[in-house]
């Protein structure tokens, strides 16, 4: 039973991909993608409930591993996946109606999105760091054509940069994995790259070699997580990808890459002491926040604005991971979920704004609240969630990260980060108020509210999580304990 639940998050989207490949995209199959994502979410929740209070469990001959951390990541993938795929039918119909897509491109889109979900689930379920790498590089391969789907000059350029920079970054991580493998073999750890073995035997790893490996791994996976300095692909790819894909890439793919960094940290800390990862992550965090702040102030494209905000939030995750206490990691994980829901619904809404107004530019969109109140509401509340207004869960998690930062001696870094977060919040509010308020740039749009229900529900879920996390709190703390090693 539990084995079936562990395999389901990978197998169900794979079957979904096969179904789209065979049947194609038609009204009857439009909701298949959402159904598959819903099954992933259901399996993740069932896994978390039935295994609550248990430790790690391996399946498929030791190839996959379910522990509280991977169960939580599966919930994030399922939730944001459901949001993005539930918004897809309306978006695809809009694109087909506008002549920018056909049933064939819609089918290809759906196949790739299903493979994308399967690859992310495989990344968080993999028992070996090597398979985590293979799955994360797999996400780059399947999303490359999704980024370049529109076949314009911009889309081709964004797809090229995306594949080139991410593959290079992830190749650096591969070098790190091989170096770590050498250290593990020297320490006599069997089966090289098994995450549990590595973490358990970490104190025996050679320090000098592990130091090289960890730096390579954090920079490599950091590229895929959009951390500065190798972030250059992110605004282009997230800005050019179709809206539901941007929602998935920004909402979960970045977090999945960050999950790999957390796993590396769980190996690095017992081997090298907490100081090494902490200084590395703190530097990446401040660099990402500063970069996001400087480029958000004058931003003119609203999808790129959301993309830079993702770099900001990845910076906050890195700050929380640098703090490294159990409370900090729990806040980081909650932040992943909250950011996924808020950013996912914002990208879905932004796709709608693009379909209604036909422009990417912030100053091309005026008076959205008069034209399409429902859409404007989603954008407005989404941005409030993003900058951490209560009651949204990002408020709680940012507070948790900041408190942990001050409590663990990262006072100056955290203070600087908070200043940058304030600057970013001001910039976001300014841009979005220009989009929402003012005299309308066009007539009231018809049916602009269609397909917004998933975004609204996700924002509501984000707000509810901020008030009452319920049984999720137990899972969060269990997941944090798998990283910090303290029960």
């Amino acid at each position, binding site marked *: 039973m539990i084995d079936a639940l562990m395999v389901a998050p990978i197998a169900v989207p794979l079957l979904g991909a096969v179904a789209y490949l065979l049947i194609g995209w038609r009204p009857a199959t439009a909701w298949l993608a959402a159904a598959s994502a819903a099954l992933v979410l259901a399996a993740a929740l069932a896994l978390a409930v039935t295994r609550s209070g248990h430790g790690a469990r391996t399946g498929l001959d030791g190839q996959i591993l379910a522990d509280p951390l991977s169960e939580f990541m599966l919930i994030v993938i399922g939730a944001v996946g459901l949001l993005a795929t539930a918004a897809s039918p309306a978006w695809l119909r809009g694109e087909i109606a506008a002549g920018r897509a056909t049933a064939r491109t819609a089918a290809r889109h759906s196949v790739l999105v299903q493979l994308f979900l399967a690859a992310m689930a495989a990344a968080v379920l993999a028992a070996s760091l090597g398979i985590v790498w293979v799955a994360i590089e*797999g996400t*780059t391969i399947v999303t490359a054509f999704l980024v370049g789907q529109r076949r314009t000059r*911009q889309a081709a350029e964004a797809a090229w940069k995306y594949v080139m920079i991410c593959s290079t970054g992830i*190749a650096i991580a591969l070098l790190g994995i091989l170096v770590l*493998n050498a250290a593990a073999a*020297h320490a006599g750890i069997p089966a090289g790259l098994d995450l549990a073995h590595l973490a358990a035997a970490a104190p025996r790893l050679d320090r*000098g070699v592990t130091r090289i490996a960890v730096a390579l791994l954090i920079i490599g996976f950091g590229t895929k997580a959009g951390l500065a300095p190798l972030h250059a692909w992110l605004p282009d790819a997230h800005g050019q990808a179709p809206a539901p894909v941007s929602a998935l890439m920004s909402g979960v793919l970045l977090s999945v890459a960050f999950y790999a960094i957390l796993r590396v940290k769980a190996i690095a800390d017992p081997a090298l002491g907490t100081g090494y990862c902490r200084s590395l992550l703190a530097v990446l965090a401040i660099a990402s926040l500063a970069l996001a702040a400087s480029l958000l102030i004058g931003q003119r494209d609203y999808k790129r604005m959301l993309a830079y905000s993702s770099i900001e939030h990845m910076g906050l995750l890195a700050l929380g991971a640098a703090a490294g206490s159990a409370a900090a990691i729990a806040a980081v994980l909650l932040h992943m979920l909250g950011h996924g829901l808020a950013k996912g619904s914002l990208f879905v809404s932004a796709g709608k704004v693009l379909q209604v107004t036909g422009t990417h530019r912030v100053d091309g969109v005026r008076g959205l609240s008069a034209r399409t109140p429902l859409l404007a509401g989603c954008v407005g509340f989404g941005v409030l969630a993003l900058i951490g207004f209560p009651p949204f869960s990002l408020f709680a998690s940012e507070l948790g990260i900041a408190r942990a930062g001050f409590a663990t001696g990262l006072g100056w870094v955290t203070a600087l980060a908070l200043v940058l977060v304030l600057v970013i919040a001001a910039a976001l509010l300014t841009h979005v108020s220009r989009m929402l308020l003012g005299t309308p740039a066009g007539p009231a749009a018809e049916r602009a509210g269609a397909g917004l229900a998933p975004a609204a529900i996700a924002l509501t879920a984000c707000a509810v999580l901020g008030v009452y996390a319920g049984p999720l709190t137990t899972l969060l703390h269990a997941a944090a304990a798998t990283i910090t090693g303290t029960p």
Partner: protein
Amino acid sequence: MPTATYVELLNLACGALLATAVLILWRRQFAAIIRWFGVQGVALAALAALLAIRGHDARLGAVAAGVFALRAVALPWLLRRALARAEAAALQPQRETRPLVNVTASLLAAAVLTLLAYAVSRPLTALTPDSPAAHAIPLGMAVVLIGFFALVTRRRALAQVTSFLLMDNGITAVGLLTTASTSLIVELGVSLDVLLAVGVLQVLTGRLRETFGSTDLDELRELHD
């Protein structure tokens, strides 16, 4: 195999890796770059075979065959096909016209990067000081660094793909030379990912040519802040 022969052959294979890396950095004609890349694939496969014979390791022998199939046959073939298409589209031999750094400076950089590789890999060689393979790790690292350098200084799409693969060859060499085995699934997955990534990049090269009319990446100026 006597140890002296083994060490000699090992040094020969690793020397060939570094020499082909420098040649790839030096040459401008795509046809020549791809040829040397293929030679490097053969050297890499020879290295794996040598380690397999030395360790009497059948699994490593299979890896050597896989390396040969992927890096000496499949990838050069894919690159040559992309080159043939580019030449058919432009009706002229394809070469790296204006790299960001000129030849002399590139070769100097390669020398500096090799020294850097020796400095960086010191903990790795110190890990198993009596293994001749471990002493060749810096050469693998040097190939990685040279590949990275070529990647950031080349401006044509095909040259960038080859540089990426050069870096990847270096990473594989480091993996082989550490003589720590990974699971076969991981190795298969990594090879498949590399092959698919190159396929994706090749398709994208075609799209760049369609939409921009060239594969000079300096033309990519649509997206910036």
